[in-house]
């Protein structure tokens, strides 16, 4: 279960995360003020070129990351064809693609630890809310450790269902999955407790 990163190192990797995030924030808000199709198209082209300059693999990867937006783009295409507002539609579609691809650029070129540090800094002032930092880091660790195990279990439950019903299950295996999660929770909690002698 790896974080989204570019397949190859890029020049962006060395830019400090805070700077990237600030630029992203400005760019994202700025893009919303662009109202002419021409300007938008130029910026769109510029960013596309930028991706291309980072390398063909990076370009392909970034395009792939935009796939989940297809349903929305499709809706926009039909909507604007129907309302005969092609320019408006193109504007919105390009804006969408631009904003998401810029955000993805930052995500894929920043180390997880850097982003974690930033999240830490944001949470810093909230420490007065009495948040237990050890609890948070333990939670993250347990999450990361158990997600693959759960996926595996989901897979096996699906197979077990399939071989007795001939079809793929949908909602039927959710109950056994969650039950096993709850039972696991008991065991893991006990294992934690048995080694956290004097913790709360």
């Amino acid at each position: 279960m790896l974080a989204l990163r570019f397949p190859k190192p890029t020049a962006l990797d060395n830019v400090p995360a805070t700077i990237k995030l600030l630029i992203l924030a400005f760019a994202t808000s700025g893009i919303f003020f662009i109202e002419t199709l021409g300007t938008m198209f130029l910026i769109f082209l510029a960013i596309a070129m930028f991706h291309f300059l980072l390398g063909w693999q990076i370009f392909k990867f970034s395009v792939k990351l935009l796939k989940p937006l297809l349903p929305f783009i499709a809706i926009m295409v039909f909507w604007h064809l129907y309302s005969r507002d092609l320019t408006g539609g193109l504007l919105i579609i390009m804006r969408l693609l631009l904003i998401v691809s810029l955000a993805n650029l930052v995500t894929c070129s920043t180390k997880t630890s850097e982003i974690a540090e930033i999240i830490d800094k944001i949470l810093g002032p909230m420490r007065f809310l009495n948040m237990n930092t050890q609890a948070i880091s333990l939670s993250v660790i347990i999450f990361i450790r158990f997600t693959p195990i759960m996926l595996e279990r989901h897979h096996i439950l699906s197979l077990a269902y399939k071989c007795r019903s001939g079809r793929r299950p949908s909602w039927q295996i959710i109950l056994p999955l969650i039950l096993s999660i709850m039972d696991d929770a008991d065991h893991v909690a006990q294992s934690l407790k048995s080694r956290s002698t004097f913790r709360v």
Partner: protein
Amino acid sequence: MEKNIVLISLFSASIAVLGLAPKVMIASGVPITAQSMGIMLCGTVLGAKRGALAVLLFLALCALGLPLLSGGRGGLGIFVSPSAGFVIGFPLAAYVAGWLTTRLKMINVFYSSLVGAITGGIFVLYIPGIIGMSITLGKSISEVTLIALIYLPGDCIKAILCAALTQTLFKLRPTNVLSRV
């Protein structure tokens, strides 16, 4: 205390698993993922505060770049895409779902979690969701509401499933359904 940490983490992970599991086709032809049901479940099973924490943990890890949102989405892009409103509304949805499930202790678990799941997972979630879609797709609220209606049948089914699951879990593992403890 340990049980809280573990249940929150594991339910948080289950949101990811339910999102990564294959999509289901329902009658209206729209594929739905079980992910938003995971959000509702966090609320109805763990209660308001812990359910919201589980969802926040999930979102924090998504923000770190882990592709946990259904469709393998992750990173900062999820906070600027059309579904960003829904994503930001997730913790609130879980909180409300949990709050209602706990508050309505006097009635049967199924009905209280159904009310919780529908109120939190649909009414409360759709508000930021629709606002988010309106901003990113440049449409008016009423126009976007039409688009959002596509999700509605699927979400209703999920709410019912969520309530049924919560009821069964309460029967089988009452001490772990923290919303009713």
